[in-house]
């Protein structure tokens, strides 16, 4: 049953990511990406890593949603995009790297037979608890570093976006139109006064 589920998920994920890479349509590519990300959480659930599975679901659903909004701003979602394939050297290097990676992936079971877990999950702890225990003891420093990096990203985001926060185009437009109207009225009254 587990084997069947694994091959089911693996095939679907591979197909969906192939669509993501090969499709010229933004909408298809993004949808396949989102679906693939959601299905990856299925693999985590199969490995009894329920916490990681749920996190995968929550994080990537939001992240891909943000990508969608960029796609919405930059592309016409219902038209095919002309892709520019870079120089032959880049294609060659990337293709070679992917080939090496595939070889490593397929030989990984041979290499990894003697691998044992350095920090096995604590006895009797539920899945989120086990993750928390390792995260806040052994891996506290990387965790904190990641937190600081996120803080830096957040502050720079606020600075970049906040430069013209007080400036509202609609307010400017509204005052402009009011000004021009009142000026027009003043002109009219002056003219009337002249007559």
């Amino acid at each position: 049953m587990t084997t069947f589920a694994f091959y089911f998920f693996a095939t679907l994920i591979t197909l969906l990511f192939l669509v993501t890479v090969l499709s010229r349509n933004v909408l298809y590519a993004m949808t396949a990406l989102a679906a693939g990300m959601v299905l990856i959480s299925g693999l985590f659930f199969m490995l009894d890593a329920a916490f990681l599975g749920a996190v995968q679901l929550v994080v990537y659903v939001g992240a891909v949603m943000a990508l969608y909004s960029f796609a919405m701003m930059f592309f016409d979602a219902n038209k095919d995009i002309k892709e520019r394939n870079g120089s032959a050297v880049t294609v060659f290097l990337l293709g070679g790297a992917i080939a090496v990676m595939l070889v490593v992936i397929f030989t990984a079971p041979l290499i990894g037979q003697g691998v044992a877990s350095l920090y096995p999950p604590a006895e009797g702890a539920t899945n989120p608890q086990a993750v928390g225990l390792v995260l806040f003891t052994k891996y506290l420093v990387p965790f904190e570093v990641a937190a600081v990096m996120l803080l830096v990203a957040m502050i720079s985001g606020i600075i970049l976006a906040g430069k013209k926060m007080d400036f509202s185009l609609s307010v400017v437009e509204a005052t402009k139109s009011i000004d021009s109207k009142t000026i027009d009225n003043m002109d009219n009254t002056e003219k009337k006064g002249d007559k």
Partner: protein
Amino acid sequence: METTMIHEVTWVGVAIKALIAMLIVSAVAGFGTYIERKVLAWMQRRPGPSHVGPFGLLQLAADGIKLFTKEDFIPQYSNRLIFSIAPVITAATAFIALAAVPIFPDFTFPEWIPLLGGVFVPSIAADIDVGLLFILGAMAAGLYGPLLAGMSQQNKWGIIGAARTAVQFLSYEVVTGLSMLAPIMLVGSLSLVDFNNYQTGGIASWMIWQQPLAFVLFLIAGFAETNRTPFDLLEHEAEIISGFVTEYSGLRWGLFFVGEYANMITIAVLASVIFMGGYSDFMLIPGWLMMGLKVTFFFFLMLWVRASWPHVRPDQLMWLSWKVLMPLALLNVVITGIVVMVTA
């Protein structure tokens, strides 16, 4: 999956539970449209649906026939595949989220019932350790429905609806997570069964007394999550025709509605289980009836708010979420953390 219960959870029990949840929620979702129109009419002093059947009860059947027989229209220049998938995403994810929601207490079929006698039916179809996170993730994935619907239909109102979906999702999601974090810290688990067992000691033990702020924040974020009226920006008729459902008709449109009502029920159940004692028995009232009463109350609350308040603008929603609710939720989490640290 490990279970600490005495009863053995069999696949028959899980299947029955899934069937019960599915049937009840579908039926309530259908009946909910009638209730919604009737309650709104009552609050606005007009009769509401009253022509078809006694008290307009058969209006439901009339609507169903209309939805089934209506032409299934797909715009010429739309992306047909995505356009057809989008409503299914909304409805399916709403029910997937329900898989991890405890709707009624667990029970065992009495022995005298043929075939099913002695089968134990668990309170949740899939009691995973991370129930709350899973529900959040599944409900969030449901928003791909409106997003894809809006983007695929080649309609300006649709694309505005899709853009609003993204904006709304990015605004309220933080508040939902943070408002639930404080109760999670008190209970020390992500499983909704543990939440229920934490509050078995009568009304005084309900989470709402310990976390009133989190309760209010969760409700507000829940209204945004289900597109209920103060935050129904996605399809607000007066501004963007129907937003993401502009080009939809017939059953595909109906699927969006079923998904929305199922999500309303999920949020109502979550609010009941996390903050209001869940499905524990209350004095003489059995647990399943208590659960029904609580869910009905939250459902009514959603209609009540819809009748009472105008909807907000998208910029007001973002302002509310990021500048008011999120700092409040963070403050709540920090205070809860200090209290937990001091008392533990």
